[in-house]
């Protein structure tokens, strides 16, 4: 039975990384969850592309950062921050689809 990522993560957030990129952080509750997700490669470009309905080529990178028990995914912003049609200047409320991740 699949479990929700909310069991494993204590922080799930999004933010601009500069005005042209959007970056997601998932910080796990402990090293075990981090290792579990990392070893099974649960967070990968295909998953991020699927969750956000974007091309895999717009997923710029996935980085596992052990010092923080965290994984980071960065995507191309659909629009540069503040460009016509903008919905979230700071990019701080784009994380919700990540809450659907299961393991």
């Amino acid at each position: 039975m699949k479990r929700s990522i909310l069991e494993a993560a204590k922080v799930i957030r999004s933010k601009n990384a500069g005005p042209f990129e959007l970056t997601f952080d998932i910080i796990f509750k402990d090293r075990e969850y981090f290792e579990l997700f990392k070893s099974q490669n649960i967070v990968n470009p295909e998953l991020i592309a699927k969750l956000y309905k974007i091309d895999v080529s717009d997923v710029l990178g996935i980085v596992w950062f052990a010092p923080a028990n965290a994984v980071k995914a960065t995507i191309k912003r659909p629009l540069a921050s503040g460009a016509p049609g903008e919905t979230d200047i700071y990019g701080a409320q784009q994380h919700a689809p990540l809450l659907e991740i299961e393991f």
Partner: protein
Amino acid sequence: MTDEFRVLSPTAILGYGFPESSFRKGMERKPHLIAVDAGSTDPGPYYLGAGKAFTNRAFVKRDLRYMLREGVKNNIPVVVGTAGGSGASVHLEWCRQIVLEIAAEEKLSFKMGVIPADVSKETVKKALGEGRITPLACVPELTESLVDETTYLVAQIGPEPIIEALKAGCNVVLAGRCYDPACFAALPIMLGYDEGLALHMGKILECAAIAATPGSGADCALGILKKDSFILEALSPKRKFTCESAAAHTLYEKSDPYHLPGPGGAINLENCSFTDIGDGRVEVRGSRFEPTPRYLIKLEGARSIGYRSISIAGTRDPIMIGSIDQILAEVKAHIKEMSPEDDRSEQLFFHVYGKNGVMGQLEPLATTSSHELCIVIEALCPSQDEADTLCSVARSTLLHYGYAGRISTAGNLAFPFSPSDIKMGNVYEFSVYHLMDPAGEELFKPIIEDI
């Protein structure tokens, strides 16, 4: 070089405030430097493009008063990075005027270094012509016309011009657009401390207590730089630094936490370790500075793209909510039909809160289960008059639009305000976000004055 170098960072952004008790506690630790980051591109392109501060003048003055009074009295250098929020000459002057007011009110005298970070359009166009400009990831190529249309064009300066001002004996340094860690790292680098550790410490201190737990953008933090490490300390009993809070902050607003690029090189954190040393303190080791083969600087600029008017309204009608996408598309088509030679459909935006107002095209949910929606009508046109007209016509058309299946025939929208339409003024977008190789040219010189 002393055994340790203590840096007091009062707040995440100058003007966000801090508790006086934390600041006093920081001063009791006898800091060698009081430094603050005063800016960001996060609030969007408007503030750089329009030459306005995004922080409140009264609170910037409040924060600066504490820093200047204590710094000047105790002979501790005060360094402000990205003065005025976006760090162009107009922002720098805004901050300088506040400093002058405080100095007069508090009867303070000191030597001040002001470092403009503006880069002239000629310099940028010359570099463009010589192939010394490269776009950052996801940024369009720079063109001469984009440079010409840019209202304010700045570079993120590194620690070097700040060091020059400090070497000249400045007690107070106001830097224009500045690589966030540079205002914290300049003085210790000048004194011989390790560049990688100094910059990494600055990278954390630039957000002050945001990197502690519980985090706060309006509280102080202390950094203690040593020969082979640095220590982070919270200055409020309410919070502490933990390995996780410090490491997690390294992820913040960055695409690659192992390599943090800045002017002239990057901080490499591949061998970085975080150790809890008790009493809410964390010791960090192993951060290295790696210079790039060429010293590159990041340019930032914004240009005007028109004027905006908005109208805010709501709907509570389930029939309308059920076919909102179609209704809004039809309203756009109807407006186009009213003036076919003057198609403005590309200038009209509907932000539909309760459906996809927050995520726009990234929203994965196709349907809404909200019982009410907020619709923000946005018109973005070449002039304010045109934006007002388009916003007004869109508002009245949507208000009385006879969509299929409509049974509420008195009006489709609930307006919370009269007047319903708001002029938003000039709108900007980032036009320059590129790396430039200055080809050895020294672009940023401190202007020194006695206050």
